[in-house]
């Protein structure tokens, strides 16, 4: 039998944590709205990875179902978000988040 080496769950979780952190840094630092958006997607997928990991190691289907939900939400979000960016660009000629600060004191 070909033996698959067992990768310990801690590694999966660490990967997930790294991906999530990269996403957070991207959201906080990048100025282009689309890059910010991609970073958010990265964070969502990091979370998905955590769900799947636990689903696998706890022998429970719940995590998988949650991952599907997250994907569905992410897809919907992408549709709405990109539409907003298009409109934003039409009115302000930029999708730079620094310059879109109308909602303030």
């Amino acid at each position, binding site marked *: 039998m070909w033996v698959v080496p067992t990768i310990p769950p801690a590694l999966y979780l660490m990967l997930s944590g790294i991906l999530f952190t990269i996403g957070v840094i991207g*959201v906080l630092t990048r100025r282009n709205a689309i890059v910010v958006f991609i970073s958010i997607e990265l964070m969502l997928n990091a979370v998905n990875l955590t769900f799947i990991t636990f689903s696998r190691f706890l022998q429970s289907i719940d995590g998988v179902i949650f991952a599907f939900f997250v994907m569905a939400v992410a897809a919907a979000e992408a549709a709405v978000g990109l539409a907003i960016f298009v409109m934003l660009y039409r009115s302000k000629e930029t999708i730079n988040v620094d310059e879109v600060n109308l909602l303030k004191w």
Partner: protein
Amino acid sequence: MLEYMWLIPLFPFIGFLINGLLGRRLGKGVVSVVGPSAIGLSFLTSILIFFELINKPSTERIFEKVLFDWIVSGSFQTVIGYQIDPLSILMALVVTGVSFFIHIYSVGYMHDDPGFTRFFTYLNLFVFMMLNLILANNFLLMFVGWEGVGLCSYLLIGFWYEKDSAANAGKKAFIVNRVGDFGFILGMFLIFINLGTLDFTDAFGSANKLDTATATAIALLLFVGACGKSAQIPLYVWLPDAMEGPTPVSSLIHAATMVTAGVYMVARCNVLYNMAPIAMAVVAIVGVATAIFTASIGFCQYDIKKILAYSTISQLGYMFVAVGVGAYAAGIFHLMTHAFFKGLLFLGAGSVMHAMSGELDIRKMGALRKKIPITFATFFIATLAIAGVPGLSGFFSKDEILWMAFSSGRGHFLIWLVAAVAAGMTAFYMFRALFMTFFGESRVDHHVAHHIHESPKVMTIPLMVLAVLSIVGGYVGIPHVLGGANHIHEFLAPVVGGTAEPVKAQAMFSLISEAWAAGGGSGDHSAALELFLMAVSVVIALIGIGIAYFLYLKNPGLPKMLAEKWSGLYRLVSNKYYVDELYQVLFVNSLKKFGTGLWKGFDEFVIDGTVNGIAYFIGWLSGVMRKMQTGLVQNYAFSIVLGGLILAVYYIMRAFL
């Protein structure tokens, strides 16, 4: 018919609603029918109930009807319920009867007033409230009536509100009454705390549980209320000013009915007062002091309505003497006869004013008797009655009070003496007013003189009816000593108890004259004494009349000379002993100062300062805080991350520590 006694207050209420809500649309004609007839119907109902009651044996003459629950809150329960007994039905008869005639009179008197509808609305509301006061079967409903009549009094005193003096007089009446009402409320609280009920039957039934101190406190507090409503010292000051109102109002509210509410209340609470001898002594002393004090003010007044007002206060003093010495029936009897003759006097004064184009000053009248004969005749009868001339109603009731003040166990020779002197003074100033108005030479302004005319029938007929009542009203209470049966005493006995025994009479008698008794031809000493005192008071009254005749008809120049001779005293009395000024300084000004202090110091500085300060602080704080709202999405995201980090650190630290 007894079952339907709630109709008595209902009719005036319906009248009030019709006049108040629809009166303007219906017009004067309808209002002048609805107003009096509402009262007439309730008068009729009262008469029917009275006759039904009188046909029952005297022990079964108390009838209560509870209409519905009013307040039910824990152990506190009150109902809207009415009680018919000899006392309340007698009061109801007097109130509805006199009101009815005064309503009719008002149709004539107020005919050209633009506030005609409003006037009848208030008047009907007043009668409704007065009937609630009288017929209530518990203290709280009585208090509603008590306040209600106070409200109507205020509205009607200030009826011509565009006049400053009238508006102020209304306010004064209301505020002075409030002082009294405060006492009444406290009295009710004490009754409820100690007896757990405000129902008359229950409260008086269990009153023997009270100790003397509590009973005295309750009785005195209730008497404070009575002082306010019935204008006794020290709260009498509002009543003379109340004459700013239309004359029928003075007649109905400020002479015949409302102001007697205090006397009625004391008589109603006779169980409590009987338990508190000190309180009764206070009532009697305040009564007699008021009687003589205000009678003396009447000497130097020239405004015909003011004279009558002081006379009213003085007569109310008599009623309080009666109830204060335990002669409740005598007090109620005087209340009734007073309602007739004083109501008549005021209506007569109104008729004089009507003839004189609104003139009130008796110095500008004189020799009116030929020109307005009906007014003169009726006014003359009423004056005779109030002066206590034998044969008229005032004589019987006043004499009974004097006799009881002397002979009752709670009475005293001094009370009798002062009251008898006050009776003489009453005779004097009333005849002074009569002589100056109707006799002597005419001092009328000629512009007014050729307008003088007798009032229309709608006004003179009530005068005549009340004149008849002023004469015969006393015959229900002819004392035994004059061979009468004193029906009114027997009738009221189930409520107020029988006549107090003349315990002192025997002892005092020897002081007067032993020989006189023999001459009196009566074996019964107290009867002889009663006759003797009666003769004394008649003589005093005649002396009063004689002096008035001498000063104001025989020597019309003399009063002026006397006034100049004792100018200090004259000024003191004609300025009403400066009581109003004293109150102004003592209470009004200091309260105003106190109020201004509170307004500027507490309200504006502390309260407004706190509220505005908090608002300014919050405003400043939000000014600072809103800078956080940068509009940059990444700042918000950063704070979310920061929050998440703090939470994570917190949980990790907690796990390790």
